[in-house]
């Protein structure tokens, strides 16, 4: 049986190899940004003794009279109209609490959800009692942000038919944080652990790495589809052959997924992990280029550091050529 052994070796940081420097003004907490009192203070700053002081480590952004410091990594901050993928944590009286990688859990009101069959009516007491039948703790949903409360909590809605419930392949049923890293290319959870046969894989990344675009639902030409949630939760699933128009997506498709589709999904997942490790923005083009660059390698090799660097360098190159 062949075994692979890897020894630690010092590698040069990637930023040196890129050979460029940043033009941004970088600060750490406690740094004075400016002593000019004419500026308005935004996020990441606070006023102390007539000076504007940074409170997070990041880059300073100035828009006219507003100065704010954008931190490298934060939790998701909701904005109206964002697409998010979240996991139900609680079923409360007339709403569900959804975990979306933000500072407070988001809420999904019963009235903001489509009833199966697409009927439009006032939600009755029977609907409240039947809430658990629609969504239980541990289910994954895709939804849109409807409103943001004053303390930062976010209210979601799934009013359009394209939103709905997903079933997570990589998560044993009813656990909260279903992301289990696996370096083998076969999704190895036997059917017995999952109460419903699954349909996709969830990848959790930092929200600051998901690029804001016009649409976040992409059907990639390699055979899988991806939902890039603004909150950093990315859902990869096999492209359905025909779009189901009725039922609003609440009846999960429980047919087994073919091996070829599973391999495509695993490869995409590993590509996304390597893009995130090298801090590249995620959008459909970058994911696709990375996928194509990784085709010569085996799926499980993509996670090795040197191959990861090689693939991402190639992706960067292609993206630069495409832009310039």
């Amino acid at each position: 049986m062949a075994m692979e052994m890897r020894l630690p070796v010092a590698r040069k940081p990637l930023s040196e190899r890129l050979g460029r420097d940043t033009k941004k003004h970088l600060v750490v907490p406690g740094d004075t940004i400016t002593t000019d009192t004419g500026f308005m203070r935004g996020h990441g700053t606070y006023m102390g003794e007539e000076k504007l002081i940074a409170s997070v480590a990041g880059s300073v952004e100035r828009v006219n009279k507003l100065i704010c410091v954008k931190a490298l990594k934060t939790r998701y901050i909701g904005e109206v109209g964002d697409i998010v993928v979240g996991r139900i944590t609680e079923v409360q009286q007339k709403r569900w609490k959804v975990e979306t990688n933000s500072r407070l859990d988001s809420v999904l009101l019963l009235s903001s959800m489509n009833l199966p069959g697409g009927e439009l009516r006032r939600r009755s007491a029977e609907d409240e009692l039947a809430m658990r039948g629609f969504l239980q703790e541990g289910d994954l949903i895709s939804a849109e942000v409807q409103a943001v409360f004053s303390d930062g909590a976010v209210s979601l809605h799934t009013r359009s038919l394209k939103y709905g419930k997903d079933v997570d392949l990589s998560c044993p049923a009813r656990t909260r944080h279903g992301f289990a890293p696996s370096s083998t290319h076969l999704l190895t959870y036997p059917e017995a652990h999952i109460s419903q046969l699954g349909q996709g894989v969830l990848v959790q990344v930092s929200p600051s790495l998901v690029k804001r675009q016009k649409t976040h639902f992409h059907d990639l030409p390699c055979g899988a589809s991806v939902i890039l949630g603004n909150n950093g939760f990315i859902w990869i699933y096999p492209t359905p052959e025909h779009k189901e128009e009725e039922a609003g997506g609440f009846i999960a498709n429980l047919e087994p997924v073919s091996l070829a589709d599973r391999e495509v999904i695993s490869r995409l997942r590993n590509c996304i992990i390597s893009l995130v490790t090298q801090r590249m923005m995620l959008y459909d083009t970058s994911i696709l280029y990375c996928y194509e660059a990784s085709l010569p390698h085996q799926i499980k090799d993509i996670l090795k550091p040197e191959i990861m660097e090689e693939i991402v360098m190639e992706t960067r190159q292609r993206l630069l050529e495409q832009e310039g």
Partner: protein
Amino acid sequence: MAGLELLSDQGYRVDGRRAGELRKIQARMGVFAQADGSAYIEQGNTKALAVVYGPHEIRGSRARALPDRALVNCQYSSATFSTGERKRRPHGDRKSCEMGLQLRQTFEAAILTQLHPRSQIDIYVQADGGTYAACVNAATLAVLDAGIPMRDFVCACSAGFVDGTALADLSHVEEAAGGPQLALALLPASGQIALLEMDARLHEDHLERVLEAAAQAARDVHTLLDRVVRQHVREASILLGD
């Protein structure tokens, strides 16, 4: 050990340092991808690993939620192999609880908790031969890595007093010798003290000197941590592009 002098006539300590010198510090941020923020620090032979989760919704009892501030929750644990004798320490024991409480006091002073009402910030620290200073420094880096707004860095250092000289950054041998030890956590830019702790006897006249030595050492630690953070931010910024 008989005849072991903590401070030689020429002014050298057991490990060859001068009275005000720090041990070698190495630090790294972002060691865990799963956590919101993480950091690893080595101060001489003492190693500390800190992990931060948050701010997030309060788990467990909803009643603990504060309506205007975030709740800071700190836990300290010590590795079994960290001392001379391999000993398994249960999680709730007194030293861990006390350290956890001290860390919590320190960080409640530094984190701007009013910005995140009704949420919770978890800080988990694991230290080898655990001293308070290494834990605080590691936790500062981890909180910075998580993007949680803080007033300033929190830099900590220990100090002792031997033969009329104040020593900064005590090693294990010097701590075990039994002299007075002071632990100080400082916010360097403003010079404010977040926590000052001593549980030994020290004459009031000497307090000023020992405090000053600890403060200077903490400022030196700040220079080092500052450099680490700037390097990390610069590298991430370059990778992200403009």
